[in-house]
């Protein structure tokens, strides 16, 4: 029996702009198993961050269902949502702008604890903060320092401690290591993995870095202009990519190894505008295999076990 923590059905988010409807997220479906990680990959503007925010209802979705532990988040009222959000947290991309510069480390981490009134006494709160700080590997002496005194890696640890403060079941990590140097990136990725094992956390890991997502995720969904174009277990996706976009994306990763030069698929053309996109395959303009059938929008279909692809030509390539 699969223990599903989150199920997203037909989720859409359109933004109204002067030039028309911007299709940021356009009917996506996925499920997340408890204790697992779903990687959401794609290039800038593909809607991956919007997806993260819409799931938490930080942005109201246009339509669709978000079922978290059996309850539809979209049907909750303000009070219910507040309670539900205890279990759902977000780690932001930029550890420089996501922390209040006028608050100390301990104030930042204790804010959700105080706001939700879990712990009342000052002493209990401080003890909890100290414990969280040691969990994420922040030295106790940093208790009263301000974010500007710390480097990116430590700031990201504060962001993680703040997310853990509510003892969540599910965390959306929105590019948590993109702003960090490689040696620090590895420290944070290892920390997130350890925390997952310790607290049985489920993650949605949003990133544009394919080698990181491969290392980190159990399942990967590749997004392109608001659509999921391919979804498969991580190993399967990397061993056997099927969608032309996924293939190009994988071939574009520079590998830090000599003689690893592989045939690179260079995409031509520019990206289709997400504003009022035509009702055809979103990748058609850049795809080398484009044909008449691509004028129709392809559905995400199961090609082999757990491997979903949205391409008309998948069996022919």
């Amino acid at each position, binding site marked *: 029996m699969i223990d599903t923590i989150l199920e997203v059905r037909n989720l859409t988010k359109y933004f109204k702009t002067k030039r028309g409807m911007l299709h940021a997220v356009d009917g996506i479906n996925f499920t997340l198993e408890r204790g697992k990680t779903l990687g959401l990959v794609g*290039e*800038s503007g593909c809607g991956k961050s919007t997806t993260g925010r819409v799931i938490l209802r930080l942005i109201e979705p246009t339509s669709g269902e978000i079922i978290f532990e059996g309850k539809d988040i979209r049907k909750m009222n303000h009070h219910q949502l507040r309670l539900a959000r205890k279990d759902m947290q977000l780690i932001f991309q930029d550890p420089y702008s996501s922390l209040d510069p006028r608050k100390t480390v301990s104030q930042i981490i204790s804010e959700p604890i105080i706001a939700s009134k879990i712990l009342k006494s000052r002493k209990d709160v401080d003890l909890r903060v100290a414990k969280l700080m040691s969990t994420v590997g922040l030295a106790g002496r940093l208790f009263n320092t301000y974010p500007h005194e710390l*480097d*990116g*890696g*430590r700031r990201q640890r504060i962001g993680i401690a703040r997310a853990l403060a509510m003892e969540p079941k599910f965390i959306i990590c929105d590019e948590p290591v993109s702003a960090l*140097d*490689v*040696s*620090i*990136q*590895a*420290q944070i*990725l*290892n920390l997130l*993995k350890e925390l997952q094992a310790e607290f049985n956390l489920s993650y949605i890991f949003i990133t*544009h870095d*394919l*080698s*990181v997502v*491969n*290392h*980190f995720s159990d399942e990967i969904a590749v997004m392109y202009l608001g659509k999921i174009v391919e979804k498969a277990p*991580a*190993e399967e996706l*990397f061993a056997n990519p099927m969608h032309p976009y996924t293939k*190009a*994306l994988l*071939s*574009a*990763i*520079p*590998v*830090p*190894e*000599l003689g*690893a*030069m592989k045939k*690179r698929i*260079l*995409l031509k053309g*520019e*990206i289709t505008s997400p504003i009022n996109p035509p009702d055809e395959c979103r990748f058609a303009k850049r795809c080398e295999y484009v044909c008449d059938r691509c004028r129709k929008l392809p559905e995400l279909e199961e090609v082999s076990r757990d491997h979903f692809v949205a391409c008309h030509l998948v069996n022919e390539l």
Partner: protein
Amino acid sequence: MEDNKGLILDVKNLAVRYETEDGIVKAVNGLNLQIERGKAIGLVGETGAGKTTTALALLRLVPDPPGIVECEKMELDGRDMLSMSVKELENVRGKDISMIFQDPMTALNPVFTVGDQIAESIYLHEEVSYTEAQKRAVEMLELVGIPGERAGEYPHQFSGGMKQRVVIAIALACHPKLLIADEPTTALDVTIQAQVLELMKELREKYKTSLIMITHDLGIVAEICDEVAVMYAGNVVEKGTLEDVFNRTKHPYTEGLFNSLPNINDRKAMLTPIKGLMPDPTKLPEGCPFHPRCPYAGEDCTQQQFTRSISETHYVRCCAYERPGFRINRKER
């Protein structure tokens, strides 16, 4: 090394420090760098390693105050850069040596058309009329894969990848002898990055330009460079050919960098990060700046370090090699 004819750039003992109210930031500390004509060298390191400051110092663009540059020797194609007047420098910059900046969004002037911006450097450096310069600007634009009729458009009408192509077109407009690219693809998506790298490779072959590629991505280095110099706290800690540095890694910091990268072929492997943090550049540790983070650190590491030569092409700044039985521990990839 005696025959300096083959060197496009020869820098000895470059030091840059910023004297600020909070203390003296030692950004570059006694760096030596030699680049052979037509070669591409990758300058790799993390934030604060001094990569960008080195590039600015090479263009004599370090802001003063607070920056103070000291250098024993800086020769570009046999000409002494240190004794040049402002006027002479203006002639060299953009003509003999040019730079591609990291962020294409801010590197272009929003109120001039891209055609004018490319034509500007041609008009300034070559004796041509403005109409001729504009004609050549259109050719440059086509060379980097943008239709010539878009020369009359403004930067905001271009996507990020196209803006970076425009920046490349400006940098290459006068066929410089040395091109410094400061993280040219960091702000771009991977598929666009692949296009831009491919373009840079082509143009470099076409014009035989020497290249300094500043990056933190070892994958990019493996792809387009001939040599690598790994920087840490303002100095080159290891330098060699790609083979030397990638397959016969010698410096513990380089080892740490490689071992921190997720391996795309083995997703189960745990990452081995370098412990600790970059040192504060106002308070660099005595001796080897890496020793507080180094797993092999010994007592001799607090002494002044000097560069050792492993082979004719391979240099390392680490004293652990004097110890018997010392070897680097690179994970199998």
